[in-house]
């Protein structure tokens, strides 16, 4: 049992940077942001800055979940932002221009996300192209495709089902929170409830060994990209639903970096191997929490970046064992 306790500590240890980051941020806000922790229930809905953070953080959290898996296989997916744009554009144009039912639109968006993931997977696992280049293709071309769908316009829709995806509440809890939590639960079930997690980690850690042990390394990699694509398309739906429009030009722009950051803060090593889905979500919450905090304190946009840099470094240093050892020696 001591052994399993140690395993648990290790698992938490991986997510430590993100957990510490979220902790620091909460502590900061507790001290300096009046009303940050206020929770109100207005018209049976939970509201407050904290809710906003989770609510807004859902998009990056979804991306980070998929990204963590892909990174764990030893890859990276730069196309998630573009896939968000395509998914949003698909859903919006289906509903607004082709009169499709919202359910068909959602299905279409998810299918497009899966197809995008399959494309990346085929390039990486099938053709053996380096992940960063393989997914760069879709990062560039994908946004073009999304713009092609929308004609470069912001396609607005007003459909109760689509609006509900981001704007709805179930039992007072905002939908994005539920969707992100659901995705996390699904991700955990898929990786820890099946052998996928083990295979992903083995593949990312030592691909040759995994192959010789009989793991279908290509299928594992492809699956990671497909899951990542689907997660990105859900994020795209959220983003579109948020503004009740598909903005193919801007949806998900530069979010790939946030997603990678969240995953890495969450304890997923960029070289592949061990990953932590909980950590990835915490990482995403940290990023969003930081953004929201900066808004609340009205830090000038030009200084925002410097503050972000400081925060990332501080978090890294705070959890680095070497720093502790070093400080201890002094």
């Amino acid at each position, binding site marked *: 049992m001591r052994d399993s306790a140690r395993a648990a500590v290790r698992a938490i240890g991986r997510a430590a940077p993100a957990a510490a980051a979220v902790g620091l941020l909460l502590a900061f806000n507790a001290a300096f942001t009046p009303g940050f922790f206020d929770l109100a229930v207005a018209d049976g809905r939970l509201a407050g*800055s904290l809710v*906003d953070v989770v609510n807004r953080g859902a998009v990056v959290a979804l991306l980070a979940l998929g990204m963590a898996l892909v990174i764990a296989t030893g890859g990276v997916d730069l196309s998630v932002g573009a896939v968000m744009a395509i998914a949003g554009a698909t859903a919006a144009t289906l509903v607004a221009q082709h009169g499709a039912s919202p359910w068909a639109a959602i299905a279409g968006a998810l299918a497009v996300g899966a197809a995008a993931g399959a494309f990346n997977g085929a390039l990486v696992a099938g053709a053996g192209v380096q992940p960063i280049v393989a997914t760069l293709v879709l990062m560039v071309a994908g946004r073009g495709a999304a713009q092609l769908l929308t004609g*470069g316009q912001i396609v*607005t829709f007003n459909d109760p089902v689509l609006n509900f995806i981001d704007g709805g509440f179930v039992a007072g809890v905002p939908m994005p929170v539920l969707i992100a939590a659901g995705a996390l639960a699904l991700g955990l079930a898929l990786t820890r409830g099946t052998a996928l997690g083990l295979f992903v980690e083995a593949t990312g850690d030592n691909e040759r060994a995994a192959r010789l042990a009989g793991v279908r390394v290509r299928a594992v990699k492809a699956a990671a990209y497909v899951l990542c694509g689907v997660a990105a398309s859900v994020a795209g739906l959220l983003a579109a639903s948020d503004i*009740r429009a598909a903005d193919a*030009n*801007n949806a998900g722009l530069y979010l790939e970096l946030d997603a990678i950051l969240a995953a890495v803060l969450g304890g997923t090593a960029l070289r592949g191997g061990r990953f932590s889905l909980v950590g990835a979500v915490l990482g995403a919450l940290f990023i969003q929490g930081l*953004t929201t905090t900066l808004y609340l304190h009205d830090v000038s*946009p030009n200084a925002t970046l410097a503050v972000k840099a400081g925060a990332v470094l501080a978090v890294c240093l705070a959890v680095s064992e070497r720093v502790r050892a070093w400080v201890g020696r002094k």
Partner: protein
Amino acid sequence: KEQTAAPDAVGTKRLVVGFSQIGAESAWRTAETESIRSEAAARGVDLKFSDAQQKQENQIRALRTFISQKVDAIILAPVVETGWEPVLREAKRASIPVVLVDRGVDVEDDSLYTTLIASDFVEEGRMAGRWLAERLGGAGRIVELQGTPGSAPAIDRKRGFEEAIAEFPGMTIVRSQSGDFTRAKGKEVMEAFLKAERQKIDAVYAHNDDMALGAIQAIEEAGLKPGTDVILVSIDGVRAAFEAMVEGKLNCTVECNPLLGPAAFDAVMRALAGETLPKWIKVEDRVFDQSVAAEVIGTRQY
């Protein structure tokens, strides 16, 4: 992609014009691209197009490519104002007239370009400021949604607006953040503003319509009535803004016309005909508010 290679320019009399566009970051820019493209088609001009994806390097590269292709004229929508002297000088040496659209360039020798067809961003900011001052009676708490940090319209629209409201000590900008010119960011930032200011916000000034449209949603979701509880003024005048005005949710938009195609090709033709053009052909922008929105909306093309 087979229609690619132009037939030898010498054989046919078709005019070849290169157009270096910044990117496709907004519907506004798409409208501008489309305007130039359709005008080229209407006049039978062979248009060479390059999308720089927001990078000046790419634009400079595209200009050099146009020059080496010996195009007849170049239309340039510069991503930043500085840094064009060397490449414009190369164009001049090759006797290729360059027409600038929607944004000026900072060069000492203004013979380097033929003309600039653009709105005055600073003036747009002033117009928005003046309108808002009048509407609020010279006093009010304003939040500002800035464009992308460092971009010329963001800088100029901020400056113009600040100039205009400087005359009214009662008007204060209580918060100002970047919404990156996008709806999603506009909404997100507005959400935070509403929380932070505990809803004591009289007006929103957004550097473009998209951010204002995002802010409207945030205001609605906070349980307030945009256009009544919070006054909104923004810039661009896209169709969606007019729709929002008709619905009473947006109060005012300052036009910034992207349909520069006709004017640009007029300028190209005149330049090729040897005429000298004024250095700035100012696009006259107007202020539209709710009072005229309904009647004007039918005439909007973008």
